[in-house]
């Protein structure tokens, strides 16, 4: 699935001057299978890009389309289908359920598509060294631990695009690398692409494309 941003200008960013290579106000195509870095300083609209690209924000001008279809015309059921099988997201604020355990947070997402077994989910937790948090409430975890849970949750579905909004902001280098390895393997395995937004750190990964804001 290709994502096209045709002259997109979010209302809150309309008064700011954007460069000629910015994704805002220009035509940008995110081609299927590409691994893309979106590197920008604070306040430039990284989260705005994430939420606009997945249809959570509608306060923009221009046309944003998936394979040529304007996303403004998608129905709630279309969106559910897209969020279950085509686009997975790691939100900046993670969007975990603090009153549910790590296990429940992962299963509630995994149940939609039955992508992994509990064992496979546990294995991923083990790789990220938080397997002992399996039955702990997410609200009791540190931000770094929660970030790792949110990344594994994003893996627990088939996807063509993985959109990640500063997913490693609370992780050290080792944990960031481990996460990136899991993301890379899962993305490549599906022939999918990803967009990773970051505050200047490229985490040493060889991206196919870099976007600017």
């Amino acid at each position: 699935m290709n994502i096209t941003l045709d002259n997109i200008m979010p209302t809150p960013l309309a008064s700011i001057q954007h460069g000629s290579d910015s994704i805002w106000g220009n035509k940008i195509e995110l081609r299927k299978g590409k691994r893309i870095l979106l590197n920008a300083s604070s306040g430039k609209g990284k989260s705005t890009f994430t939420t606009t690209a997945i249809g959570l924000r509608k306060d923009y001008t221009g046309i944003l389309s998936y394979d040529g279809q304007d996303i403004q015309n998608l129905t709630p059921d279309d969106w559910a289908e897209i969020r279950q099988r085509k686009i997975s997201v790691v939100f900046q604020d993670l969007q975990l359920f603090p009153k549910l355990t790590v296990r429940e947070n992962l299963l509630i997402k995994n149940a939609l598509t039955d992508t992994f077994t509990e064992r496979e989910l546990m294995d991923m937790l083990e790789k990220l060294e938080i397997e002992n948090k399996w039955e702990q409430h997410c609200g009791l975890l540190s931000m770094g631990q929660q970030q790792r849970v949110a990344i594994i949750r994003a893996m627990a579905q088939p996807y063509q695009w993985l959109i990640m909004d500063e997913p490693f902001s609370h992780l050290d280098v080792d944990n960031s690398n481990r996460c990136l390895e899991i993301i890379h393997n899962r993305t490549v395995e599906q022939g999918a692409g990803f967009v990773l937004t970051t505050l200047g750190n490229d985490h040493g990964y060889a991206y196919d494309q870099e976007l600017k804001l």
Partner: protein
Amino acid sequence: MLNKLLFKNQDGPQLIIAMIGAFMGITFLITSIHYLIKVNEFGEGEEILGPNTIIVQKMISNSSIFGLTQTDFSISEIEKMKEESFILDVKPVVANNFAISFQTNDSLVPYFRSDVFIQTVDPEFLDVKSDNWEWEEGDTIVPIIMPRDFLVMLNTFMSAQNIPQISDEIAMKLNFKFTLSSKDNSKKEWVNAKIIGFTNSVASILVPESFMTYGNDTYSDGTDQKITQIMISGEESEFGLVEEMLNERGLESKNSQMVIGRLKSMIGTLFLVVLGISVIAVFVSGLVMIQYLQLLMSRNAYEVRTLLRIGYKPREIINKFFIYFIKIFGLVALLALTSFFLLKLFLDTMFEEGGLYIDTNVTVGSMLALTLAYALFTLSSYLTAKKGIFKEY
């Protein structure tokens, strides 16, 4: 897991208060509807005259004995009564203007003969099938409705003769005979008669209108027949107004008819008030339940929003709330139904001890009210859930 996420952390006491409110409202609603129907049905079937119908005549005073006041009704008097809002209909009771006697004509009962007084009323006031209440000139049998006192009298007579007494059903199979004659006895005729029902409201034998017309046309001496009795049919629950009108106009009726009418009117009004309060209670408790659902959804706004963002369909989440409230309302309805039956057991016993033998079957109306309340509660919960979910979308 979704249930745990959406319903685990709710305000228990508030839910229980809302459920108690709905439970009480529905219990009183179905109880009051049930007894309102039962009170209105009270006495029906036992009496061949239609419900809320009385036969009245003018009170006889000393002045009427001397002919100073009239004891018959004029057409204008009848028309004026019809104009009252609480009166459904007024019709004259027509009496015979010729000589008529009545006798037994069956080997099962001893010979018995008496001069009698017959009357006819509009068929609309009678609870009989029109096919059974027809007579045409040339017909050999005339259907009649007997005063129940006649059967009592006949049984007393038979008991004194050491003959077995007869039931309503047997009496309706016996053959009787009318002898019609002019007052100067110059013309005479015999007609067979069959009882088709009994009444407590009329002291005379009731015959079809066509038979009365035939008798009056053939055997009367030509004098005008005076209307000394009329039938009045009043509105449900407004019997007090009918009674007031009778007093004002110097009319009287059989006391038992008045007592039943007054009692039905009184109890009916009482249950109508309870019904009104119940409807308000159900409405208010419905609002409280819906408010509780809104509170629950507002507490779960983050969870609902996140579920939608990770791929749950709005309909799936709406259904979760809807099914949850179907269960809550189902429990409330079940508890209300149980308490209705307990209350009914208590009230039926109380009525019976008070001498009011009310039919104990459950009324369809009360069950329909329960179904309707349940449907309204669930429908409003569905619409509220839908609105709340799409607000987070």
